């Protein structure tokens, strides 16, 4: 499990292996972790991308975090599908790198569920998502595990007015999950911590990957690669394509 080492003599508690799939950037915005002092975060590529997004969004200053980059050939046993096509096996941002630099993965990953949804029409996709989200139990594990969900007061916690119905029922569930996907547009680093944490196996990444693809196609932007880049959904650029305006 994720550990927080504060004394040099505890360093043997650290581990590294295929079970270390957590995106530890999620802890960088937690106040009880910040209270411990300047953090060094063990960061494989996807984790480092999340740290970059936090830097871009002003949640942490570069000098206030030490990034221990980890060369990573893939997490999970069997290895996660996303790792087969990873292009950040050497993190893009780090202070020190553990392990030799590795180039991008050269595998191919079949994604039959996404292909099926991509080929289906909007009505069928809508039915699919309505049906899938009926089993959401509003545990908010997706939100808790996501490094990009750092709002001190999430939209579902507001009740003047109640933006999202609180009950784990179809209407509120659909609202919650789509709202979260939209709030991640241009910010999601595809670490998949959300899908992995869902206790009812909702295929959240099918939606997050699609939103990511739309942002990439529309704005030629992917989150977390360049800390000096301006995030697509925050920045106005007069060169932005305007084909979606019809």
């Amino acid at each position, binding site marked *: *499990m*994720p*550990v927080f080492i504060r004394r040099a003599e505890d360093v043997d508690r650290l581990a590294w292996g295929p079970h270390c799939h*957590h995106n530890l950037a999620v*802890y960088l915005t937690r106040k*009880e972790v910040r209270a411990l002092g300047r953090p060094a975060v063990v960061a494989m590529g996807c984790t480092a991308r999340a740290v970059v997004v936090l830097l871009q969004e002003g949640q942490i200053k570069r000098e206030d975090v030490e990034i221990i980059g980890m060369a990573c050939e893939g997490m999970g046993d069997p290895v996660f599908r996303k790792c087969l096509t990873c292009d950040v096996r050497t993190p893009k941002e780090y202070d020190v790198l553990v392990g030799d630099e590795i180039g991008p993965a050269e595998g191919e990953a079949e994604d039959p569920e996404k292909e099926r949804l991509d080929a289906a029409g909007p009505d069928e996709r809508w039915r699919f998502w309505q049906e899938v989200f009926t089993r959401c139990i509003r*545990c908010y*594990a997706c939100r808790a*595990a996501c490094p990009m969900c750092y709002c001190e007061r999430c939209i579902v916690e507001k009740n003047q007015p109640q933006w999202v119905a609180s*009950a784990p029922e179809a209407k509120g569930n659909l609202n919650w999950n789509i709202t979260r996907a939209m709030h991640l547009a241009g910010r999601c680093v595809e670490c998949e911590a959300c899908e992995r944490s869902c206790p009812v196996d909702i295929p959240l990444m099918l939606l997050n990957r699609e939103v990511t693809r739309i942002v990439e196609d529309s704005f030629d932007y992917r989150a977390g690669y360049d800390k000096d880049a301006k995030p697509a959904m925050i920045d106005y650029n007069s060169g932005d394509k305007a084909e979606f305006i019809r």
Partner: protein
Amino acid sequence: MVKAVQETKNADLFDAMRKEGRRVVAPVEVSEGLVLFRPVVSGSRLRPEVLRTRRSIKEFFFPMTETLFEFDHGGEAVDLQSPEPDVPETVIWGCRPCDAQSLTLLDRVFGDEHRDEPYFARRERTTIVTAACEKPDEFCFCTSVGGSPVSEEGSDVILLRQSDGRLQAKALTDKGKALMEEFSSFFEDAGSDLAPAPEVPERFKPAEIKTRVDAPGFFDGQVWEDVALACMGCGTCAYVCPTCHCFDIVDEGGLVDGRRIKNWDACGFGLFTKEAAGHNPRATQPARYRQRVMHKFSYIPTRYELLGCVGCGRCSVHCPGCIDIAAVVDVLGRAEAAK
């Protein structure tokens, strides 16, 4: 009453029960690898062999969401409507002894000082048929919290593996006996001895844990930060847990009408104890995680003389931060008293 039942006939037995108006709830595969207790319908993929469903049986007595009443104050007087209770006669078939044991605590929580009538209406109309465990795994720790893979507590019928491969069905209550009599064509003579019960190694003694966590100064100790910084503050552990029972009551609706709803809640959420003026008595995640452990292993034992944990392991399996509650309790038991 002791009989035997053939697992291969489960689908037919459930059909027969449904024809007699019962709702049969059993472990059903909802999507690949996801097995939940669901009402059985024709075509349900029954998965009785799965050790642990994702969630417990508590939602059939304490629903995830429940409308308490509807209100409308658009007219001259406030109009209140209680929803018609919809409580079918139900058989839960194939929960585990840890699931059934949770009902002993939930009955006290929902019955002691104020009786939650809808809860007890569901309890009265439900027969619990528990399947004893044959292959506990490394997350199970029922034997550390007063349970066992073959415990009969909370059940109306228990199913135990016989050495001839059939399941022995032992009625434990009048309700269980009545069910077996009503569907007697599916219950054969038992006539075989039982397969040996599996072992679940004991990991800690709850009385010792309680003494340790109740010791002066332990509450404010550093150990809580050590064990709980990884907690991300979701509600997964509380929601998959058979004994967690906290809820939130909200009014939602339009300008003049709406409903009062009781929803599951979790002490891990930051909002759980946040007060209207903005103060939060459990302001950090370690303080919130401490509440979970103290509630289960100290406060509930003090109040009810029962444990607040049945050792099912679900929270440990599903925690996004990989927190294993049995490991945490073990660390607490070995921690120095006050630091």
